[in-house]
């Protein structure tokens, strides 16, 4: 029986509590929050005996095997480090850390202590994401991905969380290096990172504050982001984050040398796009029928999964936790390769550095090269050129 502790008793902790209840062979032995009332309410609702407001006391008194870190991102590194140093395996909610450097440190500490660590990229373990992975592994694409498109959108107008953020100049999200983006985009970036092989792909990012946010006086939060990611002469990817496009997509498209796949996270559909074309007019009539058949198949699969009582909204999280616990018990590799966690963090670092540069250029603030916190000179030059490109485009319009 794995002894599990939860650190941070906000909204996402509820998802962990709900999924852990469904997993056999584990037990929540304690919950901790700097606000004792929050820890208390969690324990009351999830029938957990011990609630704490101090991490050291939680570890000492409950002796957990695994700690789930569900606090705001700024504290992920320190808490996870403390837990690893006290011989606990760690599941860290997304975003894994504030930057790649912290991610590297945590993974190094985990390795030194022969412990496991994982990131909360649970979307990659939903039913549909697993179906897609199986197809890719079985060679459906006909080779390595040539191009990917990842959409991760966010409804900023109706969210209570966004409402609190927009109305509060000192909200913790504003203090993250990538602000709102930092807290959200890792799911969409991780999807791309899974299929990249290079350790340092080129990244070109452009972001801006949408007119909708500007109208309500927001200047700081970037809620529209476009990113181009490329590996040397191999795979490329586009990443789109938007609060304004409709529908609000959570989609991943991957194209190989032979075929492609479209995954829709919201609808839990996976559609195969065949690379071959039919002859003449057959191309106009047959593909729509094939697509219709595939969508019907997706509906059947989803219904069957629902009837089998395995279609919970956070089923990906359950699968990820189970896989992580399996890797702990059997001492097998963790479900998310460390390379992928680091690459996700690295891409995010470069995106935020470029946005920062872009904002400074647009604001007319002189920026010495040495001020670039992340990325090499080539990336910085690329960022500046990119910002200039978009500025020029707007001027021409």
């Amino acid at each position, binding site marked *: 029986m794995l002894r599990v502790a939860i650190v941070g008793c906000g909204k996402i902790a509820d998802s962990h509590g709900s999924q852990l209840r469904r997993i056999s062979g584990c037990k929540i032995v304690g919950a901790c929050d700097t606000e004792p009332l929050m820890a208390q309410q969690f324990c009351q609702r999830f029938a957990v005996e011990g609630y704490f407001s101090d991490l050291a006391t939680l570890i000492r008194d409950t002796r957990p095997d695994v700690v789930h870190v569900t606090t705001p991102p700024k504290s992920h590194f320190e808490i996870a480090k403390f837990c690893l140093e006290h011989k606990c395996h760690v599941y860290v909610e997304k975003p894994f850390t504030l930057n790649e450097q912290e991610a590297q440190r945590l993974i190094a500490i985990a390795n030194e202590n022969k412990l496991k660590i994982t990131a909360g990229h649970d979307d990659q373990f939903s039913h549909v994401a697993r179906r897609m992975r199986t197809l890719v592994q079985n060679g459906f694409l006909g080779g390595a991905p040539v191009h990917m498109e990842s959409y991760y959108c966010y409804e900023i107008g109706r969210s209570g969380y966004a409402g609190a953020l*927009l109305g509060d100049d000192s909200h913790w999200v504003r203090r993250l290096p990538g602000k709102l983006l930092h807290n959200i985009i890792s799911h969409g970036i991780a999807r791309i990172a899974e299929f990249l092989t290079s350790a340092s792909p080129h990244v070109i990012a452009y972001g801006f504050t949408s007119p909708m946010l500007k109208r309500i006086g927001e200047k700081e939060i970037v809620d529209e982001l476009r990113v181009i990611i490329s590996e040397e002469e191999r795979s490329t990817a586009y990443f789109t984050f938007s609060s304004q496009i409709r529908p609000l997509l959570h989609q991943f498209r991957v194209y190989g040398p032979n075929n492609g796949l479209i995954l829709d996270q919201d609808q839990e559909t996976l559609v195969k796009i065949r690379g071959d074309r039919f002859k003449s007019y057959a191309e106009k009539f047959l593909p729509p029928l094939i697509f219709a058949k595939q969508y019907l198949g997706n509906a059947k699969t989803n219904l069957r999964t629902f009837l089998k009582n395995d279609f919970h909204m956070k089923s990906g999280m359950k699968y990820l936790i189970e896989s992580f616990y399996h890797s702990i018990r059997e001492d097998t590799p963790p479900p998310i390769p460390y390379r992928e966690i680091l690459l996700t963090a690295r891409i995010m670092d470069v995106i935020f550095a470029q946005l920062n540069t872009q904002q400074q250029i647009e604001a007319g603030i002189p920026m010495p090269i040495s001020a670039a916190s992340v990325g090499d000179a080539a990336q910085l030059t690329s960022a500046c050129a990119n910002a200039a490109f978009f500025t020029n485009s707007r001027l021409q319009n």
Partner: protein
Amino acid sequence: MEHTELKSSLIQPDDLILITGASGFIGSRLVQTLLDRGFRNLRCFVRASSKVARLKDLAGSNSGARIELLRGNLLSRLDCEHATTDVAVVYHLAAARGEKSVPDAFMNSVVTTRNLIEAALLQKNLRRFVNVSSFAVYTNRQKRRGKILDEACPIENEPQATGDAYCFAKVKQEEIVAEYGKKYGMPYVIVRPGYVYGPGNVGISGRVGIDLFGLFLHLGGSNPIPFTYVDNCAAAIALAGLKNGVDGEIFNVVDDDLPSSREFLRLFKKNVGPFASLYVPHILSYALCYLWERYSAWSEEQLAPVYNRKKWHAYWKQTRYSNEKVKASLGWTPTVSMAAGLGKYFQACRGTESNA
């Protein structure tokens, strides 16, 4: 304020009154009510993002009064200390509304209330802490159908099982107020309004029914709906902070002449506009809630337990409501009649419909 009323008042017109959630639907009416009663020293606490045009209008039209607008966050103890400095009466209306997540609702109702109380207790002048709660705290389960729900009725002892974040947060909020009252002798009053309606809150109460993919399921049937018009409610809340000798009391606030759910729905359709609705008899709605509850438990919450027997008892079981205590103890009477209140409400609904 009348001389006799002033004599029986807990505080004087220049004593400082704090209103949290002052820019909200009820809060702004409470500010108006207190000004109308002659109180001249009000501190209105609002979130950084709150719209305060109405409060500014009130300040502009009451030049003899000092209306301080204080922006902040009740999760900040420092903000709570600023808010409660020198206050005589606290009207605590700020709370999480419409939150589906229990932790968010809890944090914005319970943690905030604890912070505010602890800051208020540092004040020597505190005469009363008025906590505005809700009918959502009542269990209503043991009571037989058609019986009266009043302040003596038990509150939900398993709020986590209701599937309602608001209920959980409000029950816990009341617990913490009572706990501090008992432990530190804090003078408090709890006000539990029914469904507060009026211009500014134009939705249809869930006690009447729910929208199902465009079809309105009418669940209330012949049940009286515990309406209280926003101005009437604000008046009752104001009195709860001013009346001597009611410390530790709880007051339910509902208006007179409550319409049945069926009657309300008919009037709504007639005055605002027709829409498709389907009446679901009580026995059927109970059975559906029971099945939903069982399925939710069996499926390990593949469907969240948002409908269950506890909710049915609280929302859709036939119940009558009493406002005798609030009338007798606080001397409150609803000044806006049900007919007049509904008239204003329907007018506001029509405006919303035409804007949509």
